[in-house]
């Protein structure tokens, strides 16, 4: 992670050094096509926090870098409004059918957005409930926070990771929802996720124990199920984050139940065969 952050900052640094010719002031908004260097140099002067936030985000260290023009286009005119709608994000985040997108688009927020997006004024800042339904950017770039990671977490298995982004999550939800409602949903969501982790740890523990007695090739089918568990754990996470009951449940918990009993089944069979082979 640190290396990625460093890469982001390094990228900004290089751009600043290589582009000394650019000294646009506030009143001279560039016209025509601009390149990413131009954006960075000028915005570093006028809103350094924005550039810093972007530099700390995963967007700054993707390959290729998700830079200003990736979302805002090459023309300064209307560049904020063009970046805000969901389609900007969906293109890179796996398309309509990827779990990260589908868990949102099938949530209540997502469906209201789908129905009303053409009626919204996309010039409005991403705050103060200026949009009836929150889109990707409303939550993940709330109030223009260009650190896209502020609501997400690095590790799904680490419970502590939740504490780091609770304040950011609250500051978004409270535009529409009551404080107690937010608290209860956060606590419930974390518990739901922890239960999913318990299933994953139980499965992993069984394989670990069995690995003392059985060969890797015998355990291969169980390990393949374990890989599915990681996907289903992520579905629970996405279901909680995007408030999609379908991802919390059908794509999540009962799927994990199936994985766990299959791991148990595979390992029980190994013991049964061992038993019958015993002298």
């Amino acid at each position, binding site marked *: 992670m640190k290396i990625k952050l460093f890469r982001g900052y390094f990228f900004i640094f290089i751009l600043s050094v290589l582009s000394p010719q650019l000294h646009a002031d506030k009143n001279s908004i560039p016209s025509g096509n601009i390149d990413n260097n131009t954006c960075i140099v000028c915005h570093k002067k006028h809103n350094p926090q924005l550039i810093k936030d972007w530099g700390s985000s995963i967007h700054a260290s993707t390959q290729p870098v998700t830079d200003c023009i990736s979302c805002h286009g090459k023309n300064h005119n209307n560049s904020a409004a063009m970046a805000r709608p969901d389609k900007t994000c969906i293109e890179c985040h796996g398309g309509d059918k990827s779990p990260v997108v589908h868990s949102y688009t*099938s*949530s*209540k927020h997502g*469906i*209201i957005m*789908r*129905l009303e997006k*053409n009626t919204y004024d996309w010039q409005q800042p991403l705050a*103060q*409930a200026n949009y*009836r339904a929150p889109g990707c950017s409303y939550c993940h770039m709330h109030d223009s926070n260009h650190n896209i990671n502020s609501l997400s977490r690095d590790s799904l298995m680490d419970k502590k990771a939740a504490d780091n982004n609770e304040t950011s999550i609250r500051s978004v939800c*409270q*535009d*529409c*929802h*009551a404080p*107690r*409602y937010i608290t*209860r*949903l956060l*606590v*419930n969501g974390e*518990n*739901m996720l*922890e*239960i999913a982790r*318990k*299933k994953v*740890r*139980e499965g992993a*523990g*069984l394989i670990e124990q069995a690995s003392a007695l059985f060969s890797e090739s015998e355990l291969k089918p169980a390990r393949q199920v374990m890989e599915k568990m990681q996907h289903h754990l992520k579905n629970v996470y996405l*279901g909680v984050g995007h408030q*999609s*009951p*379908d991802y*919390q*449940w*059908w*794509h*999540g*918990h*009962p799927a994990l*139940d*199936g994985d*766990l*009993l*299959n791991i*148990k*089944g*595979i*390992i*029980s*069979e190994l*013991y*049964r065969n*061992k*038993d*019958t082979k*015993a002298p």
Partner: protein
Amino acid sequence: MISIILVPLGFYYVNWSKSGEGAGLYSRDWKPDEVFAYWNPDDFYQPVKSVVGVFKGEECINCHKGVTPGIVKDWQASRHSKADKKVFCSDCHGDNHENLHMPTPKVCASCHTVQHQQFVDEKRYGFPSHALAMERALDAKHFVDKPKAEVTACLQCHSVATKCDSCHSRHKFSAAEARRPEACITCHSGPPHPDDETYFNSAHGQLYLKEGDQWDWSKPLKKGNYPAPTCAYCHMDEGKHQVADKSIWKFGLKQINPLSSGNEIKRNKWIKLCSDCHDKNWSAQQLKAMDAERKKTWNKLYQAEAILKDLRSNNNLFPSTELRPPYPGDTKHSLIQRERIGFFEGQASAFYNVSPIERDYFNMWYFGNLGAYKGSAHGDNSFVKKWHASMDENLKDIKIKAEQLQRSEKIKTNTKIIKDIWHKGEYTEFNQENN
């Protein structure tokens, strides 16, 4: 004499069992998660005591403009704020802040009488129905048995019985929004009820996706008002809130007789509805094709069920009930432990802690069967083909696994290890102690 004693005793027992900390028939067996207050307010909602005072509607608005601007903006965009006699926050939530309540359908009924009557009337069509969704969820064995934070998602969708904003999202409560198919898909999606995919894939859905944004959604759901039918156009024709009134195959988890006299009435209702656009004979033919598809599916499902029941009779299921944790609810409500197979034995609740072959059948029955059903009902042949192929595959696998199980020798010495595999472990033990 015996009945004079037993009947009141029966009533007393049911009342007693419903008076626990949870809700429903098994309320004494579980405690609610705090978040349930929002999905089932009648049973679990307690008002916040931190704000004191009695407020008028305008006062609520003025304060909440700052506290939660989103809901105020929503209300301002709603018909409630534009009526001659405005419907304020306090009209639905109460005016004493220490004693506020979540508006349930009964609250909405004070103005929307007809819709509420229809909504409640849906109960006579049985379950599944929106009106019975909450009580049936609370009484499901797996809901009672599992940790409550895990099964919260159940109540999110099943709260369609306890709050009108499942379809008319708060605080705009728009009829036009609820008419659009998207209003249904947050719940009507996913493996056991892919209503969204099958509808959007159908010719009806394709037309909607292409042109739907241009249609006038303020119009009632009547003949001539919409170029293609939507979820609500067919299932809530003319705006009727008895969504289950024409439901023949219902959830699709058990075989029914589609030609019973009751179902003939429903069939004729469908034909009448389809003939808003289609020829009557053509519509009747489509319904017949669906009967045939269902028959084909049940033929496959019964074959799988028979294989499982044979395995059970010969004590070939592995692990059997002696080796694995009890079926949900069995420890307290049933003396005899045995594997539940098929709908009538309650296998719908047995998708965890069962042997892999039982879960394979569950997947075939829940996902394959219901996928084909919805494809067939909504006119998506690609789905019908896909899930029939999948069921064929499932059946083949079940046969192979069953043969292996029949050949396997009975477990002798490792019984304790296998019992531990199924009874111990972080989640399994947590589940035994927490529900």
